[in-house]
């Protein structure tokens, strides 16, 4: 598959009478977005806001972040099986509004999660302090269940990102990058002298607020399988995962999967990046055994020399991670795994819920229990009193001046396990 990704730089976002892109400014007709979202009768009311980098603004509780994209050529459309029809994506050309993001918030369950601070000490821990954000705060219709509300908010974010992406259809991108993955045998022939590498992506798949969808299919229901890296760039994988803020992958993270990008950078030079194996993280232990057996089998079947494995979430996924690592290493394939840590506030506790000496090559996204004090922000989009209930916050953690002390795990994307950030942890 070959995909051209055309970037249209966005350096400002403003409300206007007409939704369009002029220069590098994204103009948004608020009313149209409202109407679009309120098509779903499960949403009673939506407030739409803008948050820009450097502003004294806090967004919370964040559900998902989505990047506006549009397929201008090639089969299918963005978010296949969910927004667009169920066609195979990943080829042709896709435009990206680089620098823009749609952020959804909503009180799906009371203890909601996730802070994005657009400035101050917390800003450097989230990538979304650098993006021009259109924030949707969705209130649910009365008497609907949590599942229904979650789905409604999820769709609202995807629909809005699709709407905005559409504005870029006929704009000529400033730069176009091409990504190509050949079918397996051709790839091995073409890059004969290079070690072949696959990416094993573990997807969160446990239940309400803990789900991921592949072409709209609930990842709890899949068995490990293959996918082209470029399909992921077209939104084939989307997030229904809201917990925990620091180590869940937002849809934006999926669309911009950094492991995919960094493997492509070395493709054809040091390695032959042959493709992606996706697997899940089910609660049922027998599923974990089956999935890891299958993942190792696929890696072996593909004849790869090495894999990068990324995970998602806290606790039991550490078991899947170690199972995958062990079983793949036992096939004689080199692994590098990416995780984050819960080493306690002092950093003295055991970081992972599972371990094995075969996992000798580990990348960490940092200790999620580390404390951080966030200064008060002038503007809050969302619901601030939920901060106490946010993961990592604690009773009385907000001082009179409005600054709050929370664990890093409260910040969206802070310890992301795709390796999205430059944060790491070292032993002192």
């Amino acid at each position, binding site marked *: 598959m070959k995909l051209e990704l055309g970037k249209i730089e966005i350096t400002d976002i403003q409300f206007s009478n007409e939704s369009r892109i002029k220069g590098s400014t994204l103009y948004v007709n608020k009313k149209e977005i409202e109407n679009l979202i309120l098509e779903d009768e499960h949403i009673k009311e939506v407030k739409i806001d803008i948050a820009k980098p450097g502003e004294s603004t806090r967004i919370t509780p964040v559900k998902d972040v989505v990047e506006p994209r549009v397929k201008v050529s090639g089969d299918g459309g963005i978010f296949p099986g969910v927004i667009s029809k169920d066609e195979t994506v990943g080829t042709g050309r896709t435009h990206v509004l680089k620098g823009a993001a749609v952020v959804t918030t909503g009180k799906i*369950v*009371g*203890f909601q999660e996730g802070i994005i601070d657009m400035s101050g000490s917390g800003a450097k821990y989230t990538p979304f302090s650098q993006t021009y954000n259109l924030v949707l705060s969705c209130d649910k219709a009365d008497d609907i269940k949590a599942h229904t509300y979650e789905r409604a908010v999820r769709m609202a974010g995807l629909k809005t990102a699709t709407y905005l992406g559409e504005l870029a259809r006929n704009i000529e991108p400033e730069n176009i990058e091409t990504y190509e993955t050949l079918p397996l045998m051709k790839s091995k022939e073409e890059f004969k002298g290079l070690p072949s590498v696959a990416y094993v992506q573990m997807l969160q798949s446990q239940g309400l*607020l803990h789900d991921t969808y592949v072409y709209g299919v609930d990842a709890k229901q899949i068995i490990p399988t293959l996918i082209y890296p470029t399909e992921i760039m077209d939104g084939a994988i989307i997030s229904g995962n809201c917990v*925990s803020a620091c180590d869940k992958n937002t849809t934006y993270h999926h669309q911009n999967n950094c492991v995919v990008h960094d493997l492509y950078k070395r493709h054809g030079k040091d390695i032959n990046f042959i493709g992606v194996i996706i697997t899940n993280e089910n609660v*049922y232990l027998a599923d974990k055994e089956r999935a890891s057996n299958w993942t190792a089998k696929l890696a072996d079947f593909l004849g790869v020399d090495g894999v990068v494995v990324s995970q998602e979430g806290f606790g039991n996924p550490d078991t899947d991670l170690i199972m995958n690592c062990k079983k793949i290493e036992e096939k004689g394939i080199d692994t590098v795994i990416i995780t984050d840590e819960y080493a306690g506030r002092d950093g003295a506790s*055991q970081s992972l*819920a599972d371990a094995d000496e075969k996992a000798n090559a580990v990348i960490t996204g940092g200790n999620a229990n580390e404390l951080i004090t966030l200064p008060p922000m002038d503007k809050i989009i969302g619901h601030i009193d939920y901060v106490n*209930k946010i993961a990592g916050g604690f009773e009385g953690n907000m001082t009179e001046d409005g600054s709050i002390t929370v664990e890093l795990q409260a910040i969206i994307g802070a310890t992301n396990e795709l390796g999205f950030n430059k944060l790491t942890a070292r032993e002192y």
Partner: protein
Amino acid sequence: MKVKIITNNPLVYSLYSEDYDIDYQEISYEGILKKTRDYVHKGHELLTHPLSGSVKPNETPFKTLLISSKSKDLNLESLSIIENSIETAEKFLQRQKKYSDDIEKDFMEIDLSLIENVINKLL
């Protein structure tokens, strides 16, 4: 396969007590883990991972686990998993948080959701 449900979640109890073998007790999260450990020592096999979900042990008071109904010889894998889980949970449990009734209901729902797709699979 016959399963036994161990839970402190009234919502899980109300939905499954009629059709399933269920050990329901209004004890703490930690209590559920330790009760499960006792069952493992008696030879029951752990069927679900105790650290289900990314909601932390000091946030949600609810935990539901599935074990085998029958007991056989001690399953070392099960023992290792439950012990590691207790160790991981203990890191958080020193800083237990308290929540309102509304929010407790939400935690019950999440805990239910994490287990119901497994129970449905085993029907």
